[in-house]
């Protein structure tokens, strides 16, 4: 039985986090910009609800939702986006590399598809170490044409690795339509490797949770990988640069239609109003604190720019000597 309120809470947290983050981009408090996850929250919320704290995930360029859903502290996450020394990655990673190894978040990844084998390897290693931990790797519809993802399907299938491939099909890879980039179907690509695959309503957190729970159970039981194609829609820009550059590739009508089914509304309807309001208020407080924490946190010291370059502390030559 899904905990509807908890799912709603996660969806709401991600939605409001992204909205605040976009504001901070506009205010130039976040260096560069972000790829907003708005609209896709049901997927992170539903899949992570099926996971244990010690399970592993890898995330994407559009990764805030996954990291938050897996339990990362929104304040340290926002501090990371704001490039502060208190951030999850001490300000070294930013939006596209947010990681929290204590929670099994092996990092967002800026290279489309690159994390699929990493998650597969982590899943394989977890089993080798005798645990029943599983790994979830997120990627978009654009990633299913990336060779390394397909190679990872093969390895995961051969080894029955406890990994769940979660494809967030939002219809677009930047400005390219899924149909123009993907011959055949996404589920068919996994099935070709003998991986069970299902299409899931990626706007409904409970549908996602149900499908994810089944895949996780399979993986934990040693029955191997699953692919879930979650159908969704990106409500906002591919990246916040669109807010100023305004490339034209989706019609306003399409965007409006895409936004018609909103995971926040769908899940919100399952929670009593009073509880929903409590959750909403709670999240506003949480995010207000997070923003404050982030913006009041110290910037990293430029003298430490090379810290952590090597895990063993090897020091290298500077660029001027």
């Amino acid at each position, binding site marked *: 039985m899904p905990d509807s309120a908890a799912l709603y809470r996660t969806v709401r947290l991600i939605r409001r986090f992204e909205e605040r983050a976009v504001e901070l981009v506009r205010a130039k408090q976040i260096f560069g910009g972000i790829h907003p996850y708005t609209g896709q929250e049901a997927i992170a919320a539903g899949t992570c609800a099926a996971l244990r704290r010690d399970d592993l995930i890898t995330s994407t360029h559009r990764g805030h939702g996954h990291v938050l859903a897996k339990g990362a502290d929104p304040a340290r996450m926002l501090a990371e986006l704001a*490039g502060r020394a208190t951030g999850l990655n001490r*300000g070294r990673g930013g939006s596209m590399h947010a990681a929290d190894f204590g929670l099994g978040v092996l990092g967002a990844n800026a290279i489309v598809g690159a994390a699929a084998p990493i998650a597969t390897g982590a899943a394989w290693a977890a089993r080798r170490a005798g645990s029943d931990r599983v790994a979830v790797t997120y990627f978009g519809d654009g990633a299913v044409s990336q060779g390394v993802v397909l190679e990872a399907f093969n390895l995961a299938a051969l080894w029955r690795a406890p990994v769940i491939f979660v494809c967030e099909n939002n219809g677009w890879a930047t400005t390219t339509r899924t149909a123009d980039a993907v011959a055949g179907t996404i589920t068919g690509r996994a099935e070709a490797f003998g991986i069970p695959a299902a299409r899931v309503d990626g706007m409904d957190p409970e549908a996602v949770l149900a499908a994810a729970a089944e895949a996780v159970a399979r993986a934990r039981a040693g029955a191997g990988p699953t692919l879930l194609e979650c159908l969704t829609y990106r409500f906002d820009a591919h990246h916040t640069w669109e807010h100023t550059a305004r490339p034209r590739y989706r019609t306003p009508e399409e965007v409006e239609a895409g936004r018609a089914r909103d995971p926040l509304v769908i899940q919100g309807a399952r929670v009593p109003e009073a509880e929903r309001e409590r959750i909403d208020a709670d999240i506003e407080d949480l995010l207000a604190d997070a923003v404050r924490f982030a913006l009041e946190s110290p910037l990293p010291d430029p003298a430490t720019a090379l810290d952590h370059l090597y895990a063993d502390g090897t020091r290298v030559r500077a660029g001027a000597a």
Partner: protein
Amino acid sequence: MTILSYLKALNRAITDEMDRDPAVCVFGEDVRAAVTNVTAGLVKRFGPERVLDMPISEQAFTGVATGAALAGQRPLIEYQIPALLFLAFEQIANQAHKFSLMTGGQTRVPVTYLVPSSGSRDGWAGQHSDHPYSLFAHVGVKTAVPATPADAYGLLVTALRDDDPVVVFAPAGAMGRREDVDLTALAPVPLGVGRVHRPGSEVTVVAVGHLVHDALAVAEELSDSISVEVFDPRTLHPFDWQGLSDSLDRTGRLVVVDDSNRSCGIGGEILATAAEQMHLIAPPKRITRPDGAVLPFAEELDRALQPSRDQLRTAIQTVAKAGGFR
């Protein structure tokens, strides 16, 4: 005269060559919508058969370009991020580059690889901020790093006409440059011919890409005390060794400023070649990124690992007054 931006120069070079030669075609991600703006207007003008949006499959579409080149086309590939070259590295360094020699000269692979906004861009962090031009000079793929709009135009046109693979890096730090030019006088710039942006007699500063502008600014600042010549190689392979040697014959002192990692970067190559073969009256210096640099996200950390004007100024001053070799 017209104000030409660097970005527009790239766009114009491609447009002109597509007009001139029907074999030129464009491959890349989001090139029809032109998210980098480099390919703006192309699909409208030349149609979708010559401007192809690619699925996210860098290795395959780089190989497709090789195959298309073997069959008579002259593809240009736009990569949105420098690191995408890493994904296609085998296809470039081990395939496209090697066809000519391995086949005993039976064929040629005229492909241009263009990376707009190479190097660090605001907020893109570790995996998107490399400046890997030295890797291509090492493997021997022709490599251009234009500094100015006119050179961006001229080098890109040359790359598109060249019968070998050519990588063109358009540094993020140069993409915003603008220049007053006579559009009718825009012309191809040959590979392997550097450019003295500013003559000088005491120290030669070799600057790569966007750093040419920093070098010019620092040279200007120092002009009361030190006469600095600013040499822009424009292409890293082939390299204008003769041009550099001529400059060092005048100055005998060398500073290089290079936005790639220190070890085995083009900065080191220039120092090595100068030390081996050219007129040097004092130990040379280079300003680079650190060894094996990974650019951290936060702005101040990112900046701390890239060559700065301060570093360059200090290096020039040190080299200008240094004694001979020990």
